[in-house]
């Protein structure tokens, strides 16, 4: 890494948004909006590349940051089919090359090793996160509610979870954080999400980034670092409203 510098109008980023038309069921668009605005407010130019079914996988290689949200079952099947046609290999490649990414709910599960349905059927995942998910019939209750997670940045993530699947971490992945209030990955081991290199998997809706500006800025920072091969500091922004929103939830936990 060369000397540190501060972000400026010289910098630009491309955010890859995977399957925005299919995997946007829970307001996950808010994550893209947050990243975009937090860059724009610092003078960093942003292009959002929407990558969906049938689009050339090579577009992924041009991205400095990747996001994929959650979806209903029918849409997830369509996405799964399309990923296997080439995007899966490129996605693995760019994540191995330290591209930051955030993968929410259904997307998080996809990037795991496998998903086991109630009838015993096993759906293979992309194997990027060393995790697997189960949704066995005896666990009919969904894990729903506001959630607070102490994460690797020593910051508390505030969000809302709503998932039937229970995810378990393997050896080659770290948890995104420890659950302070709520269920997390499986309601048992107090872990939430997963992080591998600069890729994050999580169950947090909210959506996650608007109320967690430190995480949003970490993703932006990593994107700049990977693109420009140097650590680039971000000018601080006024996060008063963000903190008021966080406090309002924390009070109820």
């Amino acid at each position, binding site marked *: 890494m060369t000397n540190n510098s501060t972000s400026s109008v010289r910098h630009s980023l491309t955010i890859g948004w995977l399957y925005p038309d299919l995997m946007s069921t829970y307001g996950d*668009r808010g994550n893209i909006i947050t990243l975009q605005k937090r860059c724009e407010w610092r003078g960093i130019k942003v292009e959002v590349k929407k990558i969906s079914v049938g689009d050339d996988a090579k577009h992924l290689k041009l991205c400095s940051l990747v996001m994929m949200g959650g979806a209903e079952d029918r849409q997830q099947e369509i996405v799964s089919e399309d990923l296997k046609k080439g995007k899966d290999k490129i996605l693995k490649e760019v994540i191995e090359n330290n591209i930051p990414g955030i993968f929410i709910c259904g997307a998080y599960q996809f990037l795991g090793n496998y998903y086991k349905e109630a009838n015993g059927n096993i759906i293979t995942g992309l194997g990027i996160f060393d995790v697997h998910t189960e949704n066995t019939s005896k666990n009919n209750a969904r894990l729903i509610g506001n959630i607070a997670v102490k994460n690797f940045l020593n910051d508390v993530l505030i969000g*809302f979870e709503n998932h039937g699947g229970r995810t378990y971490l393997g050896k080659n992945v770290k948890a995104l954080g420890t659950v302070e209030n709520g269920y997390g990955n499986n309601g048992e081991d107090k872990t939430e999400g997963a992080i591998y290199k600069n890729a994050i998997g999580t169950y947090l809706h909210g959506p996650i980034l608007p109320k967690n500006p430190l995480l949003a800025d970490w993703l932006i920072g990593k994107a700049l670092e990977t693109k420009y091969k140097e650590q680039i500091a971000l000018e601080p922004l006024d996060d008063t409203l963000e903190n008021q929103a966080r406090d309002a939830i924390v009070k109820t936990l």
Partner: protein
Amino acid sequence: MNQIIVLFGKTLSAFSQMFNLGNGSTWPGHIALQINKHFVRDILKNSATKIILVAGTNGKTTTSLLIKTILETNGKTVIHNSSGANLINGIASTLLLNANLIGKVRAEYAIFEVDENSLTKVLAEIDPQYILLLNLFRDQLDRYGEVATIAKKWTDAILHEEHINLILNADDPQIAFIGQQLFNQKLVKYFGLNAQGKKEFDHAVDSIYCPRCGTKLDYADIYYSHLGNWSCPKCHLKRPQLSQEAAPFYPLPGQYNEYNTFAATLVAKELGLSEGQIKHGLQQFKPAFGRQEIVEYQGKKMQLFLSKNPTGFNESLRTIKELKATNILIALNDRIADGRDVSWIWDIDTEMLGEFAKHITVTGDRAYDMGLRIKYSGIPNSTFQTSTNLKSAISESINKLSDEETLYILPTYTAMLELRKILSGKKIL
């Protein structure tokens, strides 16, 4: 036994009304059903009332009231469950209030709004003459789960019945498909728009895949959300022919209200009313609380647009923009009836506000979340303010109004109820 329940229920309701105890509209019915779980079925078996069920994500209350107004203007007697009482216990309460002491309802018609997730349960107890299906949009995901799941539940419940007349929104593929699967096509009629539409979707759009074969649908015209003139390029399923694509009179602004008006017109036609009678009825229509009702408060005018999901909110924004709004109050709550997860607000195109709003006040339990949404829409800090206290938020907004200006209020469901208390001094219904 049912007669005793009726007497008991009427006493309870009278008591609660007398003491202004608030939502007395579901617990009498709840108790009745505890005593006799087939209470609803029994009362209706005794009565000659024709029943119309109205279901859909947005528009149930407005459409039910449109139909009720048309019928009552033309001399018919109608009962209708109050807004917010659209589960089976609410329907039971309505029957309790309107049944006479021998357990019979005398009204010629009953219009029951039914919550999306309760249609199956209601159809187990009620044999309606008509089912009106308005639309299916994303709404309260933490309560209902998925749109496709609800469509399937509706299909299973309805296709079991062989003699109900269906009035369906042709422009909503999942709803139209229910009708298209019915064996007796004479029992289905469709309403929809026949106008020039958009060529591109809004962001928060569901079900744009063929309900039969799963292929992405083509649209000759898009009206709003996923409603439009749709067809499948693979299996050639397409929007069915419209029986109703206009109305003799339009009492409410907003494209979403065209659908509601066509639906009400079609139902009234099926019930035997003439075009002239329907027009006369529509001209008498007064909107329901929160659904574009205009209220006076502290000498100023305010108009409320209940906005409880991305589609409804977008349509409210478009409509108030047409009405030349400049002062807006947004109230976001996250109580059980609103949905505890407010992620959906990021699917609203609040960027639109930048085109016309001069003052935005954001309030409700989750005021700060909505404030963030507004901030991230690029709206300058000077244009909006956030305050969790509903009453002071109203006062602050009113202070910014000139005498001729109207304050446009976009509340979620429980915020609307709170507003009603403040604006009219009465607890809801």
